[in-house]
């Protein structure tokens, strides 16, 4: 019993931390640079599929199957997602904020459509299975497996976190925040402002791709249904609840919101008869949606939001 | 001084941001039928004062009484119904609508027949506007726009007309035209509060004036007295008041 609980706990935390990586990526884009990306799910998908196609065995009628090592897959995921963010960013970052939101939303929809329909490339609605799991040999002992996974994801998250903390406090980070706050200062930087924005966008995108790969190798199977607006929404909720503009907030928010999500999942299991549970799952999103609205109304800085590193967009909301 | 005043402002503390007041206890009083000029160097708070009266700028302390009633905190659109009309310095007409539509819109508070009558009256006062009544306001020249802005404000037959720097950006000739119109308007019984940077022209038109500096009252008095007061001229370094005397 105790072992099961520990095992679940490790699984829970590992999943939460994989979301934390996505949040950290979104934090660079939004919290630090003020870029409103509503297409998070798209970049996660690109990373997941890239890694899957690189590392899975060959499949008839479908591209990929290179059976490369997991590490290559993860690096490939970061590169693919980063490149995708680069293309999207080059085209759209000059748009004003709400147009950027609509456009990135469209990008995610388009990516999901491709994942769903381009069967020769992505396996279509069936997705991609047999994604190799790290330390697969341990699969026999669930607890060891989950703990090792937790260590791995935790390790990636920790490295990402500290690297980003360095970046945030570096001159590069200061330029980003200046651009976020002051359009005229940004204009005086000329073309360079957009280049900095692009860098931030690509870095954030590649982290999202990495998270997608981590999740894909964690579960062993991906499908287009995983990468829908609900995912983008969950990540935004995590960042806002935790405190946007803040790397610690990103991680905390991921754990808190994932915790609430899991808790609500349990509640549904308890409160609804088995036949109704799939339907009741929709209530989880309603609950998170209401929570997001409440946070925005009452404490838009989130739990850990700090005044000085937070965009005036958010600060203004508190006054 | 404030007794029986049409507009009485006392101890006004106001500004755009809480904790950063631009006006720090300013006050003015205006009586029916007069033209009062509100002067002062840049940043004195004269624009802020009329905007605060018009309900566009938050008021933190003080009282605003118009026509016997406290209007502090009133919503901007309710003041129109009380007979208070304001012409802002910039963006004072709807550029996507025609001259006619601008007037129709402002006259909405009137009954249909009164509105038609007023529009005719406005066209009588501003024949230039009538000629181009179907022109979109965005295509008007600066001077014509100013005239439209004033006509628009007069539609409701206001008791008090407030203008924020109506001569801004206008040539001396156009400024004279605008001020000439204001003199005409005063004859119809409208009280006028005029914020102006061009102190000379304003004091030539006005009966009385107030001079603000740094958010507070500095001088006040009859217009001729202010115009010849060296202390007033001193506030304006190299101002038109000093050079004109």
């Amino acid at each position: 019993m105790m072992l099961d609980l520990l095992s679940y706990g490790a699984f829970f935390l590992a999943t939460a931390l994989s979301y934390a990586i996505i949040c950290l990526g979104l934090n660079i884009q939004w919290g630090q640079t003020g870029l409103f990306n509503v297409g998070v799910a798209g970049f996660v998908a690109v990373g997941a599929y890239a890694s899957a196609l690189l590392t899975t065995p060959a499949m008839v009628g479908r591209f990929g199957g290179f059976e490369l090592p997991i590490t290559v897959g993860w690096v490939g995921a970061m590169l693919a997602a980063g490149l995708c963010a680069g293309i999207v960013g080059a085209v759209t970052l000059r748009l004003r904020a709400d147009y950027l939101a609509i456009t990135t939303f469209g990008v995610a929809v388009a990516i999901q459509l491709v994942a769903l329909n381009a069967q020769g490339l992505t396996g279509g609605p069936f997705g991609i299975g047999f994604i190799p799991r790290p330390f697969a040999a341990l699969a026999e002992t669930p607890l060891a497996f989950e703990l090792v996974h937790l260590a791995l994801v935790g390790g990636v998250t920790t490295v990402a976190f500290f690297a980003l903390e360095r970046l945030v406090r570096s001159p590069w980070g200061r330029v980003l925040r200046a651009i976020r706050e002051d359009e005229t200062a940004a204009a005086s930087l000329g073309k360079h402002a957009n280049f900095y924005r692009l860098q931030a966008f690509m870095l954030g995108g590649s982290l999202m791709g990495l998270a997608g790969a981590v999740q894909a190798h964690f579960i062993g199977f991906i499908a287009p249904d995983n990468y829908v607006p609900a995912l983008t929404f969950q990540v935004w909720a995590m960042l806002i609840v935790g405190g946007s503009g803040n790397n610690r907030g990103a991680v905390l928010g991921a754990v808190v919101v994932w915790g609430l999500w899991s808790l609500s999942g349990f509640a549904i299991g308890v409160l609804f008869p088995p036949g109704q549970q799939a339907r009741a799952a929709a209530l989880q999103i309603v609950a998170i949606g209401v929570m997001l609205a409440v946070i925005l109304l009452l404490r838009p800085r989130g739990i850990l939001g700090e005044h000085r590193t937070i965009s005036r967009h958010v600060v203004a909301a508190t006054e | 001084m404030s007794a029986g005043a049409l507009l009485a402002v006392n101890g006004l503390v106001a500004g755009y941001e809480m904790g950063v007041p631009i006006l720090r206890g300013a006050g003015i009083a205006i009586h029916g039928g007069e033209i009062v000029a509100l002067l002062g160097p840049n940043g004195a708070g004269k624009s802020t004062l009329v905007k605060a009266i018009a309900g566009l700028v938050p008021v933190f302390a003080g009282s605003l009484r118009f026509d016997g009633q406290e209007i502090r905190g009133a919503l901007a659109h309710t003041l129109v119904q009380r007979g208070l009309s304001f012409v802002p310095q910039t963006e004072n007409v709807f550029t996507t609508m025609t001259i006619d539509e601008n007037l129709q819109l402002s006259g909405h508070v009137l009954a249909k027949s009164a509105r038609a009558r007023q529009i005719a009256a406005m066209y009588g006062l501003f024949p230039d506007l009538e000629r181009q009544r179907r022109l979109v306001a965005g295509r008007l020249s600066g001077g014509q726009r100013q005239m439209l802005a004033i006509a628009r404000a007069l539609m409701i037959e206001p008791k008090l007309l407030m203008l924020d720097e109506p001569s801004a950006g206008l040539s001396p000739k156009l400024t004279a035209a605008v001020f000439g119109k204001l003199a005409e308007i005063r004859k119809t019984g409208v009280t006028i509060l005029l914020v102006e940077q061009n102190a000379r022209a304003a004091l030539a038109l006005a009966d009385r004036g107030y001079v603000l500096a740094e958010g507070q009252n500095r001088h006040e008095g009859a217009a001729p007295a202010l115009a010849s007061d060296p202390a007033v001229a001193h506030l304006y370094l190299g101002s038109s008041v000093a050079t004109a005397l």
Partner: protein
Amino acid sequence: MTLQFLADGLVMGAMTALGAIGLTLTYSILRFANFTHGDLISWGAYLTLTLAAIIGMVLPSGSIGPFSFGWPIVAAGLVAMLLTGLLALALDYLLFARLRRHGTAIILVIASFGASLALRSLLEFLYTPSPIYFSRELQIAIPLGAGVRVTPDQLFTLGLTAVLVGVMHLLLTRSHIGRAMRAVSENPALAGIVGIDVAAVVRTTWLMGGALACAAGVMLGLTVQIRPYMGSDLLLPLFAAAILGGIGSVPGAVVGGLIVGLAESLGVQLIGANYRAAIAFLLLLLVLLLKPTGLFGVRP
């Protein structure tokens, strides 16, 4: 290739236009991209369905003439238009108005994105994800010549859209409320100074936007089907239509909607139905990159 895509495109375009009108009005007056607009369409359809079931117990529920719907749906639709307008108003009161007082437009968009997810998920919970229909009656398509066939319901959609668009146009150009809306859209502070109750105009805009979205939802439900994501799946076409037409322009939203509908329809004929949503996205991208003010827009 037949000309059927013209008929299908116009019908779809008409419904998109109705949704886009509401979106462009709220966008220009409230100045934020409202992601919940699509869900108002869905809610309108479901509210009509539910009310029609109730009303159908009292009113005779046979279909009117060649159409697939009867008086219960008509009555329900009218009531639902009001209710959807009130729903939009409630969203504003509870969420957007408060955020508007303090925050910037971006926070509003985030909130609207979240509210959108919540609204559609609530529908999914209440009604299950399965598609449902107003009526099980099959409609016979009428041949119009040149290989084009339309159902009576589709013709009704075109007709009703034309009527609603005409009413909106008259309202905006000839009535005071229309002028007031245009005034608030251009300059809310000036609108207040000239005596317009800006808060009242905002409320009216939400009511109108919600009502039009409901009408679009009912017609979409009649001609296609009702499901929880029906409206939110239209978000990209709606934004594309509103931006293509020029934010704030009702004729623009109509033209934009028709163009988007026809482009999607043509695209489906050429490359199949799978990538339908991508067509609107590409149109949107083109407009934003080439002419962000749109066809009839006055401000970007």
